[in-house]
Protein backbone atom coordinates (compact mmCIF):
# COMPACT_ATOMS: atom_id res chain seq x y z
CA UNK A 1 0.00 0.00 0.00
CA UNK A 2 1.37 3.41 -0.85
CA UNK A 3 1.66 5.57 2.18
CA UNK A 4 0.65 9.12 2.92
CA UNK A 5 3.74 10.54 1.32
CA UNK A 6 2.58 9.42 -2.10
CA UNK A 7 -0.66 11.25 -1.64
CA UNK A 8 1.15 14.43 -0.79
CA UNK A 9 3.49 13.94 -3.73
CA UNK A 10 0.61 13.39 -6.13
CA UNK A 11 -1.25 16.40 -4.77
CA UNK A 12 1.80 18.66 -4.88
CA UNK A 13 2.89 17.32 -8.25
CA UNK A 14 -0.47 18.04 -9.82
CA UNK A 15 -0.40 21.61 -8.51
CA UNK A 16 3.16 22.23 -9.65
CA UNK A 17 2.46 20.89 -13.14
CA UNK A 18 -0.55 23.17 -13.37
CA UNK A 19 1.39 26.20 -12.24
CA UNK A 20 4.32 25.53 -14.55
CA UNK A 21 2.13 24.87 -17.55
CA UNK A 22 0.39 28.16 -16.97
CA UNK A 23 3.50 30.17 -16.21
CA UNK A 24 5.35 28.97 -19.29
CA UNK A 25 2.85 30.81 -21.40
CA UNK A 26 4.63 34.08 -20.78
CA UNK A 27 6.90 35.09 -23.59
CA UNK A 28 9.81 37.43 -23.32
CA UNK A 29 10.85 40.00 -25.85
CA UNK A 30 10.51 43.66 -26.60
CA UNK A 31 7.11 45.24 -26.59
CA UNK A 32 6.13 48.56 -28.05
CA UNK A 33 4.34 50.68 -25.49
CA UNK A 34 1.08 52.34 -26.55
CA UNK A 35 -0.43 54.83 -24.12
CA UNK A 36 -4.17 54.96 -23.46
CA UNK A 37 -5.63 57.46 -21.02
CA UNK A 38 -8.96 57.07 -19.24
CA UNK A 39 -10.61 60.29 -18.16
CA UNK A 40 -14.08 61.24 -16.97
CA UNK A 41 -15.40 61.61 -20.52
CA UNK A 42 -13.99 58.33 -21.82
CA UNK A 43 -10.74 56.86 -23.05
CA UNK A 44 -8.35 58.28 -25.65
CA UNK A 45 -7.15 57.77 -28.27
CA UNK A 46 -10.06 55.92 -29.86
CA UNK A 47 -8.10 54.78 -32.87
CA UNK A 48 -4.65 53.22 -32.90
CA UNK A 49 -2.46 51.35 -35.31
CA UNK A 50 -0.34 48.23 -34.83
CA UNK A 51 1.43 45.76 -37.09
CA UNK A 52 0.39 42.16 -37.57
CA UNK A 53 2.47 39.85 -35.35
CA UNK A 54 3.80 42.75 -33.34
CA UNK A 55 4.12 42.55 -29.55
CA UNK A 56 2.67 45.65 -27.99
CA UNK A 57 1.84 46.73 -24.47
CA UNK A 58 -1.16 48.96 -23.90
CA UNK A 59 -0.27 51.24 -21.00
CA UNK A 60 -3.60 52.33 -19.65
CA UNK A 61 -3.52 55.20 -17.17
CA UNK A 62 -6.72 55.90 -15.30
CA UNK A 63 -6.99 59.63 -14.58
CA UNK A 64 -10.72 59.51 -13.92
CA UNK A 65 -12.27 59.26 -10.47
CA UNK A 66 -13.77 55.83 -11.08
CA UNK A 67 -12.22 52.43 -11.54
CA UNK A 68 -12.09 51.44 -15.20
CA UNK A 69 -11.86 48.16 -17.04
CA UNK A 70 -10.46 47.31 -20.43
CA UNK A 71 -11.22 44.20 -22.42
CA UNK A 72 -11.23 42.92 -25.97
CA UNK A 73 -14.60 42.71 -27.72
CA UNK A 74 -15.88 41.31 -31.03
CA UNK A 75 -13.35 38.50 -30.94
CA UNK A 76 -10.31 40.48 -29.81
CA UNK A 77 -8.53 38.18 -27.39
CA UNK A 78 -7.72 40.49 -24.54
CA UNK A 79 -8.95 39.47 -21.11
CA UNK A 80 -10.64 41.95 -18.84
CA UNK A 81 -8.22 44.04 -16.80
CA UNK A 82 -9.19 46.34 -13.94
CA UNK A 83 -7.44 49.70 -13.83
CA UNK A 84 -8.14 51.22 -10.41
CA UNK A 85 -8.45 54.99 -10.37
CA UNK A 86 -5.09 56.71 -10.36
CA UNK A 87 -3.26 53.53 -11.45
CA UNK A 88 -1.55 52.44 -14.64
CA UNK A 89 -1.75 48.90 -15.98
CA UNK A 90 0.35 47.41 -18.77
CA UNK A 91 -1.59 45.02 -20.95
CA UNK A 92 0.68 42.96 -23.19
CA UNK A 93 -0.86 41.83 -26.46
CA UNK A 94 0.63 39.85 -29.32
CA UNK A 95 -1.21 41.01 -32.41
CA UNK A 96 -2.51 37.97 -34.31
CA UNK A 97 -1.01 37.73 -37.78
CA UNK A 98 -4.42 37.16 -39.37
CA UNK A 99 -6.25 39.96 -37.56
CA UNK A 100 -7.42 43.03 -39.46
CA UNK A 101 -8.56 45.00 -36.47
CA UNK A 102 -8.56 44.77 -32.71
CA UNK A 103 -11.38 46.27 -30.71
CA UNK A 104 -10.95 47.22 -27.09
CA UNK A 105 -13.69 48.36 -24.78
CA UNK A 106 -12.64 50.81 -22.09
CA UNK A 107 -15.41 51.28 -19.53
CA UNK A 108 -16.66 51.47 -16.01
CA UNK A 109 -19.67 49.22 -15.39
CA UNK A 110 -21.57 52.11 -13.87
CA UNK A 111 -20.41 54.66 -16.42
CA UNK A 112 -19.50 55.36 -20.03
CA UNK A 113 -17.84 52.99 -22.47
CA UNK A 114 -15.37 53.88 -25.18
CA UNK A 115 -14.57 51.58 -28.05
CA UNK A 116 -10.94 51.76 -29.14
CA UNK A 117 -10.31 50.59 -32.67
CA UNK A 118 -6.84 49.30 -33.36
CA UNK A 119 -6.00 49.00 -37.04
CA UNK A 120 -3.74 46.09 -37.88
CA UNK A 121 -1.38 46.75 -40.76
CA UNK A 122 -0.55 43.44 -42.37
CA UNK A 123 3.12 42.70 -42.94
CA UNK A 124 4.34 43.83 -46.30
CA UNK A 125 0.96 45.33 -47.11
CA UNK A 126 0.89 48.02 -49.69
CA UNK A 127 0.84 51.42 -48.11
CA UNK A 128 -1.03 54.05 -50.04
CA UNK A 129 -0.06 56.97 -47.88
CA UNK A 130 2.74 58.90 -49.56
CA UNK A 131 4.99 61.88 -48.98
CA UNK A 132 5.04 62.69 -52.72
CA UNK A 133 3.74 66.06 -53.85
CA UNK A 134 0.05 65.67 -54.71
CA UNK A 135 -1.01 66.07 -58.33
CA UNK A 136 -4.65 66.60 -57.45
CA UNK A 137 -6.61 67.86 -54.47
CA UNK A 138 -10.05 66.75 -53.36
CA UNK A 139 -11.93 68.67 -50.73
CA UNK A 140 -14.56 66.72 -48.86
CA UNK A 141 -17.23 68.22 -46.62
CA UNK A 142 -18.35 65.90 -43.79
CA UNK A 143 -21.79 66.40 -42.26
CA UNK A 144 -24.32 64.29 -40.37
CA UNK A 145 -24.73 62.13 -42.40
CA UNK A 146 -23.46 63.14 -45.81
CA UNK A 147 -20.11 63.01 -47.54
CA UNK A 148 -19.66 65.71 -50.24
CA UNK A 149 -16.47 65.81 -52.33
CA UNK A 150 -16.01 68.92 -54.50
CA UNK A 151 -15.17 66.67 -57.47
CA UNK A 152 -16.51 63.17 -58.32
CA UNK A 153 -13.15 61.88 -59.56
CA UNK A 154 -9.41 62.53 -59.68
CA UNK A 155 -6.47 61.35 -61.83
CA UNK A 156 -4.42 58.35 -60.67
CA UNK A 157 -1.33 59.24 -58.64
CA UNK A 158 -0.78 61.14 -55.42
CA UNK A 159 -4.04 62.78 -54.39
CA UNK A 160 -4.44 65.09 -51.44
CA UNK A 161 -7.71 64.65 -49.57
CA UNK A 162 -8.73 67.56 -47.38
CA UNK A 163 -11.55 66.60 -45.06
CA UNK A 164 -13.55 69.26 -43.25
CA UNK A 165 -16.12 68.39 -40.61
CA UNK A 166 -18.83 71.00 -41.11
CA UNK A 167 -21.19 69.61 -38.49
CA UNK A 168 -21.71 71.59 -35.31
CA UNK A 169 -21.48 68.75 -32.83
CA UNK A 170 -20.68 65.29 -34.19
CA UNK A 171 -17.26 63.79 -34.74
CA UNK A 172 -16.67 62.51 -38.30
CA UNK A 173 -13.87 60.97 -40.29
CA UNK A 174 -12.93 60.38 -43.91
CA UNK A 175 -11.86 56.95 -45.06
CA UNK A 176 -10.89 56.29 -48.68
CA UNK A 177 -12.02 52.74 -49.50
CA UNK A 178 -10.77 50.97 -52.61
CA UNK A 179 -13.38 48.63 -54.09
CA UNK A 180 -12.11 45.38 -55.51
CA UNK A 181 -13.86 42.78 -57.60
CA UNK A 182 -15.23 40.06 -55.36
CA UNK A 183 -13.40 41.29 -52.31
CA UNK A 184 -14.07 43.46 -49.32
CA UNK A 185 -13.20 47.14 -49.67
CA UNK A 186 -9.66 48.04 -48.73
CA UNK A 187 -9.11 51.01 -46.48
CA UNK A 188 -6.32 52.94 -48.21
CA UNK A 189 -6.11 55.69 -45.62
CA UNK A 190 -8.11 57.81 -43.23
CA UNK A 191 -8.37 61.26 -41.74
CA UNK A 192 -9.64 60.12 -38.39
CA UNK A 193 -11.85 61.53 -35.68
CA UNK A 194 -12.32 65.13 -36.73
CA UNK A 195 -14.12 67.13 -34.06
CA UNK A 196 -16.87 69.53 -35.17
CA UNK A 197 -15.46 72.30 -37.37
CA UNK A 198 -12.02 70.70 -37.69
CA UNK A 199 -10.12 69.83 -40.86
CA UNK A 200 -7.47 67.29 -41.67
CA UNK A 201 -5.66 65.98 -44.72
CA UNK A 202 -3.88 62.96 -46.12
CA UNK A 203 -2.03 62.28 -49.36
CA UNK A 204 -2.70 58.89 -50.95
CA UNK A 205 -1.02 57.41 -54.02
CA UNK A 206 -4.01 55.75 -55.65
CA UNK A 207 -4.23 53.60 -58.79
CA UNK A 208 -7.17 53.94 -61.14
CA UNK A 209 -10.32 52.24 -59.98
CA UNK A 210 -13.53 52.56 -58.09
CA UNK A 211 -13.49 53.95 -54.57
CA UNK A 212 -15.78 55.07 -51.80
CA UNK A 213 -15.39 58.03 -49.51
CA UNK A 214 -16.94 57.03 -46.22
CA UNK A 215 -17.16 57.72 -42.54
CA UNK A 216 -16.49 54.55 -40.54
CA UNK A 217 -17.46 55.80 -37.11
CA UNK A 218 -19.45 52.99 -35.54
CA UNK A 219 -22.05 52.95 -32.83
CA UNK A 220 -20.37 53.55 -29.50
CA UNK A 221 -17.35 55.22 -31.06
CA UNK A 222 -16.49 58.88 -30.55
CA UNK A 223 -19.69 59.35 -28.59
CA UNK A 224 -21.86 58.29 -31.51
CA UNK A 225 -25.08 56.37 -31.01
CA UNK A 226 -25.30 55.29 -34.65
CA UNK A 227 -23.15 53.69 -37.33
CA UNK A 228 -22.32 56.50 -39.74
CA UNK A 229 -21.72 54.26 -42.74
CA UNK A 230 -25.14 52.66 -42.29
CA UNK A 231 -26.64 56.13 -42.03
CA UNK A 232 -25.53 56.69 -45.61
CA UNK A 233 -22.39 58.65 -44.93
CA UNK A 234 -20.69 57.22 -48.01
CA UNK A 235 -20.30 58.37 -51.62
CA UNK A 236 -18.75 56.73 -54.71
CA UNK A 237 -15.51 58.19 -56.01
CA UNK A 238 -13.46 57.37 -59.05
CA UNK A 239 -9.75 57.49 -59.76
CA UNK A 240 -9.09 57.62 -63.52
Amino acid at each position, binding site marked *: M*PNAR*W*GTVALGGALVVGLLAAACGEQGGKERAIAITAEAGGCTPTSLSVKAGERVSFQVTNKSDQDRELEGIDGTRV*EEVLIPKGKTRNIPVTVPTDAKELRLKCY*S*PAGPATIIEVDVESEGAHSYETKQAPKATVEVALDSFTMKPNVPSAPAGPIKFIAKNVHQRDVHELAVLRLKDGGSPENTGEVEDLAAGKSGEIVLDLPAGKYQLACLIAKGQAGSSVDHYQQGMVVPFEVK
Partner: protein
Amino acid sequence: MLFSFLVTLREGFEIALIIAIVLGYLARTGNRQAFGPVWAGVGIAALVTVAASGALVVGIAEASASAQEAFEGVTMLLAVGVLTWMVLWMKRQAASIGGDLRAGVDVALRRGSLWAMVGLAFSAVIREGIETALFLVAGASAATDSGVAFIGGGVAGFAVAAVLGYGIYRGSHLLPIRQFFTVSGIVVIVLAAGLLSNGLMELQESALIPTLGGRPWDTDGLLSMTTTLGRLAHTLIGYDSAPTWGQIVAYWTYLLGGIAAFTLVRVRVPGRAPTPKSNAAVGRS
Protein backbone atom coordinates in the same frame (compact mmCIF):
# COMPACT_ATOMS: atom_id res chain seq x y z
CA MET B 1 -3.82 28.28 -29.39
CA LEU B 2 -1.58 28.69 -26.37
CA PHE B 3 -3.65 31.62 -25.23
CA SER B 4 -6.97 29.76 -25.22
CA PHE B 5 -5.23 26.75 -23.63
CA LEU B 6 -4.02 28.83 -20.71
CA VAL B 7 -7.38 30.51 -20.20
CA THR B 8 -9.34 27.26 -20.05
CA LEU B 9 -6.61 25.52 -18.02
CA ARG B 10 -6.79 28.22 -15.38
CA GLU B 11 -10.57 28.46 -15.20
CA GLY B 12 -10.97 24.71 -15.65
CA PHE B 13 -8.53 24.07 -12.82
CA GLU B 14 -10.69 26.02 -10.41
CA ILE B 15 -13.71 23.96 -11.44
CA ALA B 16 -11.68 20.72 -11.22
CA LEU B 17 -10.30 21.63 -7.80
CA ILE B 18 -13.76 22.30 -6.38
CA ILE B 19 -15.23 19.12 -7.86
CA ALA B 20 -12.23 17.10 -6.63
CA ILE B 21 -12.65 18.47 -3.12
CA VAL B 22 -16.39 17.79 -3.13
CA LEU B 23 -15.99 14.25 -4.46
CA GLY B 24 -12.99 13.55 -2.25
CA TYR B 25 -14.96 14.69 0.75
CA LEU B 26 -17.99 12.61 -0.19
CA ALA B 27 -15.85 9.54 -0.85
CA ARG B 28 -13.99 9.81 2.42
CA THR B 29 -17.16 10.29 4.43
CA GLY B 30 -18.80 7.22 2.94
CA ASN B 31 -21.20 9.14 0.78
CA ARG B 32 -20.31 7.84 -2.65
CA GLN B 33 -24.00 7.53 -3.38
CA ALA B 34 -24.00 11.33 -3.63
CA PHE B 35 -21.59 11.23 -6.60
CA GLY B 36 -24.56 10.84 -8.95
CA PRO B 37 -26.33 14.06 -7.90
CA VAL B 38 -23.03 15.99 -7.93
CA TRP B 39 -22.16 14.80 -11.45
CA ALA B 40 -25.73 15.50 -12.54
CA GLY B 41 -25.30 19.03 -11.20
CA VAL B 42 -22.03 19.39 -13.10
CA GLY B 43 -23.61 18.02 -16.29
CA ILE B 44 -26.66 20.26 -16.10
CA ALA B 45 -24.42 23.25 -15.37
CA ALA B 46 -22.31 22.38 -18.42
CA LEU B 47 -25.43 22.23 -20.60
CA VAL B 48 -26.74 25.51 -19.19
CA THR B 49 -23.32 27.04 -19.82
CA VAL B 50 -23.26 25.93 -23.44
CA ALA B 51 -26.86 27.06 -24.01
CA ALA B 52 -26.34 30.41 -22.31
CA SER B 53 -23.10 31.05 -24.17
CA GLY B 54 -24.77 30.16 -27.44
CA ALA B 55 -27.66 32.51 -26.70
CA LEU B 56 -25.25 35.29 -25.84
CA VAL B 57 -23.15 34.73 -28.95
CA VAL B 58 -26.03 34.70 -31.40
CA GLY B 59 -27.48 37.69 -29.60
CA ILE B 60 -30.67 36.22 -28.14
CA ALA B 61 -29.57 37.31 -24.73
CA GLU B 62 -27.42 40.22 -23.83
CA ALA B 63 -25.19 40.28 -20.79
CA SER B 64 -24.07 43.61 -19.54
CA ALA B 65 -20.61 43.63 -18.02
CA SER B 66 -22.15 44.85 -14.80
CA ALA B 67 -24.73 42.04 -14.59
CA GLN B 68 -22.09 39.41 -15.32
CA GLU B 69 -19.83 40.73 -12.59
CA ALA B 70 -22.71 40.94 -10.14
CA PHE B 71 -23.57 37.31 -10.94
CA GLU B 72 -19.98 36.20 -10.46
CA GLY B 73 -19.65 38.14 -7.23
CA VAL B 74 -22.84 36.73 -5.71
CA THR B 75 -22.08 33.11 -6.67
CA MET B 76 -18.54 33.49 -5.28
CA LEU B 77 -19.86 34.67 -1.92
CA LEU B 78 -22.38 31.82 -1.88
CA ALA B 79 -19.52 29.41 -2.61
CA VAL B 80 -17.63 30.87 0.35
CA GLY B 81 -20.64 30.00 2.51
CA VAL B 82 -20.77 26.37 1.36
CA LEU B 83 -17.00 25.96 1.58
CA THR B 84 -17.03 27.35 5.12
CA TRP B 85 -19.68 24.86 6.06
CA MET B 86 -17.54 22.07 4.55
CA VAL B 87 -14.54 23.19 6.62
CA LEU B 88 -16.60 23.08 9.79
CA TRP B 89 -17.62 19.53 8.95
CA MET B 90 -14.06 18.51 8.21
CA LYS B 91 -12.99 19.99 11.52
CA ARG B 92 -15.54 17.88 13.35
CA GLN B 93 -14.53 14.78 11.43
CA ALA B 94 -10.83 15.28 11.94
CA ALA B 95 -11.42 15.66 15.65
CA SER B 96 -13.57 12.60 15.96
CA ILE B 97 -11.41 9.96 14.35
CA GLY B 98 -8.21 8.18 15.12
CA GLY B 99 -4.94 9.53 13.82
CA ASP B 100 -4.11 6.97 11.19
CA LEU B 101 -7.44 5.48 10.38
CA ARG B 102 -7.18 4.95 6.68
CA ALA B 103 -10.65 3.78 5.85
CA GLY B 104 -13.33 6.33 5.26
CA VAL B 105 -15.78 7.28 7.88
CA ASP B 106 -19.47 7.09 7.40
CA VAL B 107 -21.17 10.34 8.09
CA ALA B 108 -24.80 10.96 7.58
CA LEU B 109 -25.25 13.41 4.76
CA ARG B 110 -28.40 15.33 5.26
CA ARG B 111 -30.52 16.34 2.33
CA GLY B 112 -29.68 20.01 2.77
CA SER B 113 -25.98 19.22 2.86
CA LEU B 114 -26.21 17.21 -0.32
CA TRP B 115 -27.91 20.11 -2.10
CA ALA B 116 -25.25 22.49 -0.84
CA MET B 117 -22.54 20.25 -2.35
CA VAL B 118 -24.39 19.90 -5.64
CA GLY B 119 -24.94 23.65 -5.67
CA LEU B 120 -21.25 24.29 -5.06
CA ALA B 121 -20.18 22.16 -8.05
CA PHE B 122 -23.03 23.52 -10.17
CA SER B 123 -22.23 27.17 -9.51
CA ALA B 124 -18.49 26.66 -10.04
CA VAL B 125 -19.13 25.25 -13.51
CA ILE B 126 -21.61 27.99 -14.44
CA ARG B 127 -19.50 30.83 -13.08
CA GLU B 128 -16.20 29.83 -14.63
CA GLY B 129 -17.81 28.16 -17.63
CA ILE B 130 -19.93 30.91 -19.17
CA GLU B 131 -17.17 33.47 -19.24
CA THR B 132 -14.69 30.99 -20.65
CA ALA B 133 -17.09 29.62 -23.25
CA LEU B 134 -18.04 33.12 -24.39
CA PHE B 135 -14.41 34.01 -24.66
CA LEU B 136 -13.69 30.90 -26.73
CA VAL B 137 -16.63 31.28 -29.11
CA ALA B 138 -16.10 35.01 -29.68
CA GLY B 139 -12.37 34.51 -30.15
CA ALA B 140 -12.81 31.65 -32.56
CA SER B 141 -15.34 33.40 -34.76
CA ALA B 142 -13.18 36.47 -35.15
CA ALA B 143 -10.32 34.86 -37.01
CA THR B 144 -11.53 31.93 -39.07
CA ASP B 145 -8.04 30.78 -40.03
CA SER B 146 -7.03 29.97 -36.51
CA GLY B 147 -10.50 29.32 -35.15
CA VAL B 148 -10.09 25.56 -35.02
CA ALA B 149 -6.70 25.76 -33.31
CA PHE B 150 -8.13 28.31 -30.90
CA ILE B 151 -11.03 26.06 -29.90
CA GLY B 152 -8.67 23.07 -29.85
CA GLY B 153 -6.39 24.87 -27.42
CA GLY B 154 -9.35 25.68 -25.23
CA VAL B 155 -10.59 22.09 -25.18
CA ALA B 156 -7.06 20.86 -24.42
CA GLY B 157 -6.89 23.29 -21.49
CA PHE B 158 -10.10 21.89 -20.02
CA ALA B 159 -8.83 18.35 -20.59
CA VAL B 160 -5.57 19.01 -18.74
CA ALA B 161 -7.51 20.70 -15.94
CA ALA B 162 -9.72 17.61 -15.68
CA VAL B 163 -6.66 15.35 -15.48
CA LEU B 164 -5.16 17.53 -12.76
CA GLY B 165 -8.45 17.44 -10.88
CA TYR B 166 -8.53 13.66 -11.14
CA GLY B 167 -4.92 13.54 -9.91
CA ILE B 168 -5.87 15.61 -6.88
CA TYR B 169 -8.88 13.40 -6.22
CA ARG B 170 -6.80 10.21 -6.46
CA GLY B 171 -3.98 11.77 -4.50
CA SER B 172 -6.37 12.76 -1.75
CA HIS B 173 -7.34 9.11 -1.38
CA LEU B 174 -3.78 8.17 -0.48
CA LEU B 175 -3.76 10.46 2.51
CA PRO B 176 -4.79 8.97 5.82
CA ILE B 177 -8.25 10.22 6.64
CA ARG B 178 -7.14 12.64 9.32
CA GLN B 179 -4.48 14.25 7.14
CA PHE B 180 -7.01 14.36 4.33
CA PHE B 181 -9.35 16.46 6.43
CA THR B 182 -6.52 18.68 7.63
CA VAL B 183 -5.00 19.25 4.18
CA SER B 184 -8.27 19.71 2.35
CA GLY B 185 -9.59 21.88 5.18
CA ILE B 186 -6.68 24.28 4.75
CA VAL B 187 -6.92 24.18 0.95
CA VAL B 188 -10.62 25.00 1.24
CA ILE B 189 -9.96 27.89 3.64
CA VAL B 190 -7.36 29.38 1.27
CA LEU B 191 -9.67 28.89 -1.71
CA ALA B 192 -12.64 30.39 0.14
CA ALA B 193 -10.63 33.40 1.35
CA GLY B 194 -9.63 34.04 -2.27
CA LEU B 195 -13.22 33.69 -3.43
CA LEU B 196 -14.31 36.10 -0.71
CA SER B 197 -11.87 38.77 -1.91
CA ASN B 198 -12.63 38.08 -5.58
CA GLY B 199 -16.37 38.14 -4.93
CA LEU B 200 -16.09 41.53 -3.26
CA MET B 201 -13.93 42.73 -6.16
CA GLU B 202 -16.55 41.64 -8.70
CA LEU B 203 -19.33 43.30 -6.72
CA GLN B 204 -17.27 46.49 -6.52
CA GLU B 205 -16.68 46.38 -10.27
CA SER B 206 -20.35 45.77 -10.94
CA ALA B 207 -21.08 48.86 -8.80
CA LEU B 208 -23.56 46.75 -6.82
CA ILE B 209 -21.62 47.72 -3.72
CA PRO B 210 -19.47 50.84 -3.41
CA THR B 211 -15.69 50.56 -3.57
CA LEU B 212 -14.71 49.44 -0.09
CA GLY B 213 -12.15 52.04 0.90
CA GLY B 214 -8.86 52.99 -0.71
CA ARG B 215 -6.25 50.75 -2.22
CA PRO B 216 -3.28 51.01 0.16
CA TRP B 217 -0.74 49.31 -2.09
CA ASP B 218 -0.06 48.36 -5.68
CA THR B 219 2.09 45.32 -6.40
CA ASP B 220 1.36 45.24 -10.11
CA GLY B 221 5.04 45.87 -10.79
CA LEU B 222 5.95 42.67 -8.89
CA LEU B 223 3.22 40.39 -10.15
CA SER B 224 0.92 41.89 -12.74
CA MET B 225 -2.70 40.85 -13.01
CA THR B 226 -2.19 40.80 -16.77
CA THR B 227 0.30 37.91 -16.64
CA THR B 228 -0.76 34.27 -16.64
CA LEU B 229 0.82 33.70 -13.24
CA GLY B 230 -0.93 36.76 -11.83
CA ARG B 231 -4.29 35.61 -13.16
CA LEU B 232 -3.73 32.08 -11.85
CA ALA B 233 -2.88 33.46 -8.41
CA HIS B 234 -5.99 35.62 -8.65
CA THR B 235 -8.21 32.65 -9.47
CA LEU B 236 -6.78 30.24 -6.91
CA ILE B 237 -5.72 32.31 -3.91
CA GLY B 238 -7.46 35.61 -4.55
CA TYR B 239 -4.39 37.64 -5.49
CA ASP B 240 -5.20 41.26 -6.32
CA SER B 241 -2.37 43.67 -7.09
CA ALA B 242 -4.28 46.64 -5.69
CA PRO B 243 -7.01 45.40 -3.35
CA THR B 244 -9.33 47.73 -1.46
CA TRP B 245 -9.31 47.86 2.34
CA GLY B 246 -12.58 45.94 2.35
CA GLN B 247 -11.03 43.09 0.37
CA ILE B 248 -7.88 43.08 2.53
CA VAL B 249 -9.74 42.99 5.84
CA ALA B 250 -12.20 40.34 4.64
CA TYR B 251 -9.42 38.17 3.14
CA TRP B 252 -7.03 38.19 6.07
CA THR B 253 -9.75 37.94 8.70
CA TYR B 254 -11.19 34.91 6.97
CA LEU B 255 -7.83 33.31 6.17
CA LEU B 256 -6.09 33.79 9.52
CA GLY B 257 -9.24 33.32 11.56
CA GLY B 258 -10.13 30.22 9.57
CA ILE B 259 -6.71 28.58 9.81
CA ALA B 260 -6.35 29.45 13.49
CA ALA B 261 -9.78 28.05 14.28
CA PHE B 262 -9.15 24.99 12.16
CA THR B 263 -5.74 24.10 13.54
CA LEU B 264 -5.77 25.44 17.09
CA VAL B 265 -9.29 25.01 18.40
CA ARG B 266 -9.94 21.57 19.77
CA VAL B 267 -13.40 20.33 19.09
CA ARG B 268 -14.97 17.87 21.42
CA VAL B 269 -17.50 15.74 19.73
CA PRO B 270 -19.73 14.37 22.42
CA GLY B 271 -21.11 10.94 21.95
CA ARG B 272 -19.19 10.20 18.80
CA ALA B 273 -17.64 6.78 18.80
CA PRO B 274 -14.28 6.13 17.10
CA THR B 275 -16.12 4.07 14.52
CA PRO B 276 -18.95 6.28 13.41
CA LYS B 277 -20.45 3.59 11.18
CA SER B 278 -23.56 3.78 13.27
CA ASN B 279 -24.16 7.27 12.00
CA ALA B 280 -24.88 6.15 8.48
CA ALA B 281 -28.43 7.25 8.02
CA VAL B 282 -28.73 8.07 4.37
CA GLY B 283 -30.04 5.20 2.30
CA ARG B 284 -27.08 3.40 0.71
CA SER B 285 -27.50 1.93 -2.68
